[in-house]
């Protein structure tokens, strides 16, 4: 009985160990290939441009729309509360800070989990089914480096830019609500400029660099570990989305805590 329990416990730890070790090994593989980027032909511009288009340019409309609505919704909720005490002008502060610090970067990240993480996992999973990953390996090309870095670079460039679009759209959403509260655009803008500072904006945008890294790694990891069949590819894409949402939210909490130490 005790032996059986022992077995169960040890097998639990072994399973847990594998689940922790696997991603760590994957990240190690990717990082260890970093120097290869600086070799001849190490940097794959064409692939990077493709992902820049997929994860960046093609996401602009949806990011803009969602952040605009998010800004408007925040504005309405804030207005409902502020009206009670007659301090409608603080709607501007609340929308501005919420969008710049949280909603802009977070919405961009959420949209990217759907667009990028799932696409990365499905692409790598399909390549695995077609033995393209094996083919890369037997050509002596490291699949982790070959496939991860163009995506990572594209994400590191596109997410901060998307966040800028998102921030602008969110504040525009707040403005629309503000105008219905008798805060004219000029007054809204003046207040926005007055209360928000550059650092708040930059720290918010900087968050997306962390999100971009997590989303890319989660997407690629789930693709590489997907089982080599059609269902495996589908499941890989799903778990890529779930894993990256989870990682983004956890990272956001940690970053918010860290920022609070420096007073933001």
């Amino acid at each position, binding site marked *: 009985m005790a032996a059986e329990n022992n077995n169960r416990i040890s097998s639990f730890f072994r399973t847990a160990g594998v689940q922790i070790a696997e991603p760590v090994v994957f990240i190690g593989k990717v990082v260890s290939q970093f120097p290869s980027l600086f070799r001849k032909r190490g940097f794959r511009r064409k692939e990077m441009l493709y992902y820049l288009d997929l994860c960046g340019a093609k996401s602009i409309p949806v990011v803009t729309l969602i952040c605009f609505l998010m800004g408007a919704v925040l504005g309405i909720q804030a207005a409902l509360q502020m009206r009670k005490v007659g301090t409608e002008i603080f709607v501007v502060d609340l929308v501005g800070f919420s969008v710049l610090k949280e909603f802009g970067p977070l919405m961009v990240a959420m949209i990217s989990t759907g667009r990028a993480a799932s696409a990365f996992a499905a692409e790598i999973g399909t390549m695995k089914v077609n033995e393209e990953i094996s*083919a890369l390996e037997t050509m002596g090309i490291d699949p982790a480096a070959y496939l991860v870095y163009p995506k990572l670079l594209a994400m590191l460039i596109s997410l901060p830019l998307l966040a800028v679009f998102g921030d602008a759209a969110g504040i525009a959403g707040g403005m629309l609500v503000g105008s219905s509260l008798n805060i004219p655009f000029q007054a809204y803008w003046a207040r926005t400029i007055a209360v928000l500072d550059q650092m708040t904006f930059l720290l918010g945008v900087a968050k997306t660099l962390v999100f971009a890294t997590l989303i890319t790694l989660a997407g690629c990891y789930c693709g590489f570990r997907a089982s080599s069949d059609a269902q495996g590819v589908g499941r890989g894409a799903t778990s890529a989305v779930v894993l990256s949402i989870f990682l983004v939210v956890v990272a956001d909490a940690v970053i918010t805590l860290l920022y609070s130490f420096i007073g933001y």
Partner: protein
Amino acid sequence: MTNAKNIKLEIKDLVIGYGDRIVLQDLNFHVRSGEIFCIMGGSGCGKSTLLKHIIGLFRPQSGDILISGQSIVNATAEERRLIMRHFGVTYQGGALFGSMTVAENIALPLREYTDKSRQEIEEIVNEKLELVDLAGFGNFMPSELSGGMCKRAGLARALALNPDLLFFDEPSAGLDPITSAGLDRLILSLREQFNTTIVVVTHELDSVFAIADRVIMLDKASKTIVADGSPADLRAHSENAWVREFLSRDGLKRNAGEQ
């Protein structure tokens, strides 16, 4: 064994499998330079598994694999990549990179490992396409090619760096008999022109008798090699009745009926 220099590929006491499960064990064989060597056996007996271990995609549980005298098992990651550049692999479905044209696929190893100019690479690509009878298809995407064409394009890519050792996984699987015979002729002409050593995994009898100098037969039940020799010889004289049957038409028909 009299002439070690002539041995291109040597397998010593190899045990392979996935996780704790052993798929094949007690494997000992070698392939000579310039030989066309077939690995045969019923489906699910571990042919592909053996191939994937030989080309270094998986680590064996024990034993050694020597390619031109170098162990791919004990090599460091960097050494393994170096060994891999000296052989070519043609995968079952071609394994062309879907995001690149056929020409870009073939050019990839050249751009990766040589200092050749764009012009030179283009020439080599065209030459390889010609070799596999796909001249003019360089600008096609893999999705626009038929199954047989994908395999030939995959072969062209495997040949890009002029390897002297070539591995084939099921060249005739999923092809009609005429296309498949064409691929057999291609394999023979490669050996004739370049003296390439060719290892083929297949269960296609016609192919085996057309191209193979020597075959090994793998058996699922005993998990090891049950016969090693020239196909005609084994069919006529093997001590193992199952081998004789497998290599004869009757056996094939009965096997096909079982599946």
